[in-house]
């Protein structure tokens, strides 16, 4: 792996804005991005990435390869939380294990977006259907997490729990999932033609909006990390080892079904990333016993920066080794 690639990745402005945010928190600056500005930026990012993905899917068409990729994506979204749960159970209670497993089974849209920028800088192409894969991978892990929790926690007072209807709605219709999915469909339906007029909004200012959002993510991530300090080394190392493991699993599958280098990188980062926007809300409602000071900081404070700084060049290095 070229250390150069790591440095180059680190020194791009969007990533640096993430660290500027983290630094603000560390040196105790009062820099703050008040709500709902972060919400505005994140809705924008979801809308833009979904739409762009849909437009690209329109041009490429839905081939057998595309369907195969989507299939393995959904497969991983079901499998990752299961094995993660049993690993986690060695150190955590049932509720926390299920919550963390759901977190890592799902995906982080901003990690994915950062990965597409990373590929863009290196002129490596990728398929628009990976956005569809991302959208499909958000929800299943929530269902699996709740199932695992309920299965192992049978004696708990079932009546007070949420009905399955509510859990499914939380999983498949929460705002982020719905918006990215819907924007993808709109992009797919309207195609290049419809996209033309939206391009300045969805594409040109995109990197800047991403940089702005990462500034806020840096602040929040550093804040969350403080909470985690008490959690000890196990949590931190777990938040690095599990994504590494998941990335490798993703790379393996990608190799097996013959994805391109770009697609393989995106797929591996989907497997490796954990959700800190959509899943926490769903888990708060469905597994209220789980402690949010575990599952949020792990995904946001450790896994996210690890993936975007070291993970991306590392996974790409492995992929290029295997593919060549």
């Amino acid at each position: 792996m070229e250390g150069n690639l790591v440095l180059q990745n680190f020194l791009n402005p969007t990533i640096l804005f993430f660290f500027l945010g983290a630094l603000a928190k560390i040196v105790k600056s009062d820099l703050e991005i008040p709500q709902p500005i972060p919400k505005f930026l994140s809705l924008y990012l979801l809308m833009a990435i979904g739409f762009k993905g849909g437009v690209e899917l329109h041009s490429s068409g839905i081939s057998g390869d595309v369907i195969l990729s989507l299939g393995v994506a959904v497969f991983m979204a079901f499998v990752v939380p299961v094995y993660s749960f049993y690993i986690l159970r060695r150190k955590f209670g049932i509720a926390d294990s299920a919550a963390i497993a759901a977190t890592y089974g799902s995906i982080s849209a901003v990690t994915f977006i950062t990965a597409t920028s990373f590929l863009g800088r290196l002129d490596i192409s990728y398929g628009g259907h990976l956005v569809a894969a991302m959208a499909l991978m958000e929800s299943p892990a929530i269902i699996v997490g709740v199932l695992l929790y309920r299965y192992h926690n049978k004696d708990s007072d079932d009546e007070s729990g949420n009905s399955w209807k509510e859990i499914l709605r939380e999983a498949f219709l929460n705002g982020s999932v719905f918006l990215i999915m819907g924007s993808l469909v709109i992009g797919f339906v309207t195609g290049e033609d419809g996209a033309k007029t939206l391009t300045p909004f969805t594409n040109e200012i995109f990197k800047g909006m991403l940089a702005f959002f990462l500034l806020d993510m840096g602040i929040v991530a550093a804040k969350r990390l403080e909470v985690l300090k008490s959690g000890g080394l196990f949590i931190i190392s777990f938040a690095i080892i599990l994504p590494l493991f998941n990335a490798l699993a993703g790379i393996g599958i990608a190799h097996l079904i013959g994805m391109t280098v770009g697609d393989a990188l995106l797929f591996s980062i989907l497997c490796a990333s954990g959700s800190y926007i959509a899943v926490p809300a769903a888990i708060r409602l469905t597994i209220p016993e789980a402690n949010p000071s575990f599952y949020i900081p792990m995904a946001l404070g450790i896994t996210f920066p690890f993936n975007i700084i070291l993970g991306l060049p590392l996974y790409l290095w492995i992929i290029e080794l295997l593919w060549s």
Partner: protein
Amino acid sequence: MKQVKKIEIIADSLEINKILAKLEANGVTGYTVIKDVIGKGERGVRGGDGLSDVLKNSLIITVCEPGQVKAISEAVQPELKKFGGVCLISDAQWLDH
């Protein structure tokens, strides 16, 4: 002026709709909600998450007849037990209009 009871409930924002439904099921016809308040209690700090919508509270105020207090408290108690929060009851006078 009428002697009434003021019930203030502080609870996780995600639970508010459920609690309001329970209040209405127990005869509450009017309430006021202050969204996005933050706080600290037995379950730690709820200072907003900044990214997801979790970890913040809402404050419900509902004014009712003294006779309604019992039913209302019993309705919200299990919710507060499970997800945390506070329920305060105090006396007030209601200006007729």
